[in-house]
């Protein structure tokens, strides 16, 4: 067992990171800033966390995965590894300044002070500029680990100071093996889930193990069948967006409540539930952050839906063009063949364009129901 076990299909990156960690153990100084990139779900953050653990590991070779230090880093409780996880759509300059200040302190008991910044692309330009100085000339024992989908998501000035660690899309076979070995999923289910997840490890895990997630996907993949007319197409958009909303509520409401009541207590809520003077601002700020997070989760979930839909039509296109290769949605093969036979590739391409346009609409903040109505009507006619 080692800290690298959670990385799936990432041989080259593991070799690179492990070598850097061994060097650090031998008294060398690894690069002071690292940029972890790779497609969503490939395991950027997992890789960064594993690297942080290996850098702090107390055993040889570094990254044993079972010493006290490895354990703490992997659990997120290590005193000298600060994990930054932006909760909303953006990470502002005020927060960034505080982070820079903390990052400048020396480690308390281990070799390095490590800042692991998940989704660093959420830093606003102002925030990125605030971080820049610390990343350019970091304190002697501070190491920055930044994670973004692609290098272009960061200011070039920051990017150029970072050593790249590039993850690749994990192959479906590697994901399926992981599901069988680590999650005890039967090989057939594992294979279907791994392909359907298109390289997204966590998604594959949830598809293989959570019946609710599987039902939601079946619902999405059933959409093309339901587009039998203008009215059903518009109704289907409503259903889909409501489902995404429900999913988002389910994921955030409990969290929101816990956070709010914790903050109220911390601010001195009385037994009768009254708040002391001057605390309204802090509560309001939390509420704003929660709203922003809810919006982000909603957006992510809609994007997931669109990617699933795109995989459906990409399969159809592959069949129409006789491209060979295995389908993404193997479980839907008969339906996909029927759909392929019923239409022409040009129509399928237009449908794929409509899906990409819908992603742009969602990113441009268009009302989701409206964007999906437009999409469904376009998918209907092709």
């Amino acid at each position, binding site marked *: 067992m080692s800290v690298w076990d959670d990385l799936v299909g990432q041989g080259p990156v593991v070799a690179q990171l492990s070598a850097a960690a061994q060097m650090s153990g031998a008294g060398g100084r690894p690069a002071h800033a690292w940029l972890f990139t790779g497609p969503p779900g490939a395991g950027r953050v997992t890789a960064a966390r594993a690297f942080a653990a290996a850098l702090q590991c107390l055993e040889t070779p570094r990254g044993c995965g079972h010493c006290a230090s490895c354990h703490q880093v992997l659990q997120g409780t290590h005193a000298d590894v600060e994990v930054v996880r932006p909760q909303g759509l953006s990470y502002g300059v005020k927060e960034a300044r505080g982070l820079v200040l903390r990052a400048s302190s020396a480690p308390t008991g281990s070799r390095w002070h490590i800042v692991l910044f998940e989704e660093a692309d959420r830093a606003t330009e102002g925030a990125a500029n605030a971080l820049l100085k610390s990343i350019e000339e970091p304190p002697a024992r501070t190491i920055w680990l930044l994670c973004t989908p692609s290098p272009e998501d960061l200011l070039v000035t920051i990017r150029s100071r970072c050593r790249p660690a590039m993850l690749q899309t994990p192959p479906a076979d590697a994901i399926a093996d992981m599901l069988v070995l680590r999650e005890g999923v039967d090989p057939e289910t594992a294979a279907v889930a791994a392909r359907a997840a298109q390289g997204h490890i966590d998604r594959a895990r949830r598809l293989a193990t959570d019946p609710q997630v599987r039902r939601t996907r079946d619902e999405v993949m059933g959409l093309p069948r339901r587009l039998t007319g203008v*009215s059903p*197409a518009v*109704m289907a958009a*409503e259903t889909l967006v409501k489902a995404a909303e429900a999913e988002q509520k389910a994921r955030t409401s409990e969290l929101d409540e816990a956070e709010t009541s914790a903050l109220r207590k911390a601010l001195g809520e009385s037994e009768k539930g009254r708040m002391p003077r001057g605390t309204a601002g802090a509560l309001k700020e939390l509420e704003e952050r929660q709203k922003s997070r809810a919006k982000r989760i909603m957006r992510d979930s809609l994007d997931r839906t669109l990617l699933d839909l795109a995989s459906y039509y990409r399969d159809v296109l592959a069949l129409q063009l006789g491209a060979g290769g295995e389908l993404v949605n193997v479980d839907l093969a008969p339906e996909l063949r029927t759909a392929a036979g019923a239409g022409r590739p040009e129509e399928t391409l237009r449908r794929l364009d409509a899906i990409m346009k819908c992603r742009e*609409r969602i990113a*441009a903040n268009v009302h989701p129901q*409206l964007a999906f*109505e437009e999409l469904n009507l376009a998918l209907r006619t092709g």
Partner: protein
Amino acid sequence: MSVEPIILVIGDEELLVERAIGDVVASVRAGDPETEVIDLAPGGLEPGRLAELTSPSLFGGSKVLVLRSAQDLGKDLTAQVLAYAKAPADDVVLVAVHHGGAKGKALVDGLVKLGGRKIACPKVTKAGERIDFVRAEIRRAGGKISADGARSLLEAVGNDLRELAAACSQLVSDTGGKVDDAAIARYYQGRAEVSGFTVADKAIEGRLAEALEQLRWALATGTPPVLIVSALAQGVRGLAKVGGAPRGARGASLAKELGMPPWKIERVQRQLRGWTGDGVARALTAVAEADAQVKGGAADPAYALEKAVSEIIAARR
């Protein structure tokens, strides 16, 4: 005296109850401007008080005795009221206000048997009833409004009868009687959707000049562009839902399936003339584009909206 001596106001629609009482008082006062009105709750009716209040006064003059919450009178007081009602005083009108439930039913039955006149004021709960209410209110104030106009007003003002009544009298006095959509939009532009809805209605009915005029008006009076887009989306969405519904589906089952009230479905059915499925799809794209423009901080949201309105109209056959 021309007013019946015993009157029962039954129901819990507050506005209507107040009105009924007001009407009674007004007709009594028409005969005797000096009429005294005495408003009583059951708590204020200690033994003997009723007899005292209903005995002829030294100076003559009429009285209206309003007995609130008559359902809470209790056995003894109910008996007293009924005893009085057997031989009511000449210049006294007794108005018993009852909430309409089962409690205190003996009083209602007793008074009716003794010739009391019933005025029903049940809660207004159905959309159709509200439309009737609005039309009656406008008539009462001396104006005229179409059923569609009444619907627009409901959309703008909401379901509260008091607010509706106030809006109706305001509109009649502002317009001199002819209450149409433009007047409603003008006087209720503060409630932003109504202007958006008017723009949407004109657009999907293919009336370009009016739609653009309403659009400019809405923007000039400060309606946020996002709300206009949202109204356009609702309009086109309605066309898609109703127009694309299976033939033969109608009435309550259709309303349930589409999640729209029946009157709205009827209205959309009238608006569907000139629309095809493909046209609806094109119109929806135009609206989505406008939403992206407006939310993306387009330099000129007015232009984005005008474009959307023109494209919606062009999407008709």
